[in-house]
């Protein structure tokens, strides 16, 4: 996959209504999906096992599906043969803008710490403070380095009765949440998120350990997903 965090079509466009997808963009997305072998595998495998797989219709027909609008199109996997398989079905992924937001915010932290350390060095002239500052800088830099790859590892699948969520490459985690178990769906977005039109969607069940948080959805996708989830949960409502 050759996509850098900010290909032209996924460039932040805070001033454009996010729902307005031009045919060109959609075409580009399809192309980018096709040029990756895993993308082909996805397309091919999404036909199998229709019984379990009949997905929940998310978008009102006729519209471009907001869930896959300007998102990543391939989930990177660990090399080990014993990895948790991607399995059948289409995985929806995070918006590309999420990487940008993460890079900006973590980069800001990095720069601030760096600047503070330099100022301390210049003004007070001692240098032991580079030890804690160095640790912070290293951790942040490491986070910054893996962010683009990590962001791609998030994926969710809307199956007939449950939502499957996966994340992580080195430490993989897959969770299946029956729709009826959802207690509430939370959407949050900070100022930076809003600027890039992304939002974080959190799915809350009675079990704290479920821990399904999808961090970087397009705002429209997040709202659409929320509405769909609530609607589906309503028809499959169960007790605690």
């Amino acid at each position, binding site marked *: 996959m050759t996509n850098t965090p900010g290909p032209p079509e996924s460039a932040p466009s805070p001033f454009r209504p996010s729902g307005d997808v031009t045919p060109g963009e959609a075409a580009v997305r399809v192309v980018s999906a096709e040029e990756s072998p895993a993308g082909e595998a996805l397309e091919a495998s999404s036909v199998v096992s229709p019984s379990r797989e009949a997905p929940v219709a998310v978008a009102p027909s006729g519209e471009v599906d907001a869930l896959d609008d300007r998102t990543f199109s391939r989930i990177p996997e*660990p090399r*080990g043969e014993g990895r*948790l398989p991607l399995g059948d079905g289409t995985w929806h992924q995070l918006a590309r803008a999420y990487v940008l937001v993460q890079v900006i915010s973590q980069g800001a932290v990095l720069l601030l710490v760096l600047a503070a350390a330099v100022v301390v060095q210049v003004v007070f002239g001692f240098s032991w403070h580079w030890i804690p500052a160095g640790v912070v800088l290293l951790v942040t830099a490491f986070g910054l380095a893996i962010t683009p790859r990590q962001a791609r590892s998030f994926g969710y699948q809307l199956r007939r009765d449950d939502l499957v969520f996966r994340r992580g490459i080195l*430490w993989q985690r897959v*969770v299946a949440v029956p729709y*009826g*178990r959802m207690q509430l769906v939370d959407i949050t977005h900070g100022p930076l998120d809003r600027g890039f039109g992304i939002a974080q969607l959190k799915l809350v069940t009675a079990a704290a*350990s479920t821990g399904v948080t999808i961090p970087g959805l397009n705002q429209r996708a997040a709202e659409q997903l929320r509405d769909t989830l609530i609607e589906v949960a309503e028809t499959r409502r*169960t007790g*605690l």
Partner: protein
Amino acid sequence: MTDSRPPEPGWAAPVGPALTPQPDAAPPRQADVPTPVTPQPDEYAHAPQPGGPTPVAPQPDGQDRAPQPDGPERPGVRSPLSDGEWHRLHPLTPLLRGGLFLLVIIGVFIANARERLLELFVPAFSEVPPGEYPPDPVDFILGNNLLLIAGGVVLAVLVVLLVAFRLSWRFHTFRIGADDVEVRSGVLFRTHRRAPLDRVQGVNLTRPMIARLLGMAKLEVVGAGLDANVRLEYLGTRDADTVRGDILRLASGRRLAAASTRGASPAAGPGSLAQRAAGVVGDGVQGIVVGEDLSDAEPESVVRIPVGRLAASRLLGGSTVLLLVFVVVTVVAASTSTLWVLFSVVPAFLGFAAYYVRSLARGLRYSIAPTPDGVRVTFGLFTTVSEVVPPGRIHALEVRQPLLWRPFGWWAVSVNRLSGRGATDTSTDQFAAVLPVGTRADVERVLGVLAPGLPPEEWAALFEDGVLGPRPTDPFTTTPSRARLLRLFSWRRNGFLLTHDALFLRRGWLWRSLSVFPLARLQSVGVRQGPLARAMRTATVTAHVIPGSVPASVGVLDRDDAVRLLDDASASAVAAAAGDRSHRWAG
């Protein structure tokens, strides 16, 4: 304030529209249960009725419903307190709730006036020469002839306190409706809490020592959520018990009179007689001598724990190992350095002793019994807690065996359930340890009570397979032999089993444990895998349930098994939840 009404049944009278509870509360099936209605007036005849300050009855904010015509609509309601009207709590409530405050004040007073009291009663032992007191407020008052004023102030404070307590009692009302339990309290800042009955997670009846002496009990309706409990503190013991029965009966959705009679009558006969007899003796004495069992349903406990076994099991717990290690360390330290180390550990030993005594006292007088409305578990020597957990409120359970119990064949059972406490409430949820210690037969009976859906022979097979370990025909899917290095001893045991209504996780070889997750309560399932597990082609499966003490994950399973379990368990959980009707368990 001056309006003194004629003595009425008092606190039991409906607050809202005048309506005498007695005739109305008589349910259709009162023929076989006359007791809860008849003893009501004289039962509270002893209750002090401070005729003085009787403030105007709190107006129910205009939200009061019209008095419901009783009878066919409220079957199975046995207590006049649960007739769908607003009622007050026990008149002695302020004493217990404010009692602590008063105790503190008295304590402060005694601490300050200690010298003086000593001098007053045992002049010989006083260190202060007679006639000379250390300067204190009492001297000041005596010296300046302010006795009258001081007395007046004290009296005024007392009166204000009494009035405040009385007011808060009058404004503290509750109502048990057909669909919810409501409590209103507060004089200036009113709070109104309403809990829907179909979400009730349990009803527990707590009787702290002092309250028990006064024949009172605290009723707590456990809700699903953080700090979601509705507390009725305090009620008379017998009332609390019948009210609890009513709440559960209403919550069960047993609307039909026929169903209600069938469900509750077998238990009612001897219980009511015993109640009447007990009423003569007096609640306080009875409560201490006989114990908790004043229930309407008087069921026989399915497990008896001999005191010796309970004590031995507490001694053989993990804390004893800790204690032994501690003793060895101190002895070594004392012999190598100074003997004074021995004295510094006295507080630690006291702490251990207190822990043993407490856990023993908590486990004493244990009983567990099935009732028509769920499992009833009773605990405690000094503070007796008796809790009824309706069916389908147990989210996970674990059978486990600490190492030292192994020679004796003892097991413990604990559960996860919603306790509805606040995040700040750190006291342990007593119900979590459903069976503190028991033999295999006890465990099987307890499991049978907790999960009545499974036939007993299936439980027995499950015990053989799941708890005792792998038999040649082992239904569990276990760790593959290629990964046995990661579970050196337990790899044959380490595994899972998915049936159509539960997920079983079996773990441990030295510390044997089996976790059971009813699929109808399973929130979600997760699989995770780190680099090492990936190299071994294994994964870890976690069952996501409400937080509690039951371990919910099992590692080092074959990757394909784990992924398959994720799909199967999710699908089965959906199916089980769709067929689950336990929120109204009798409907």
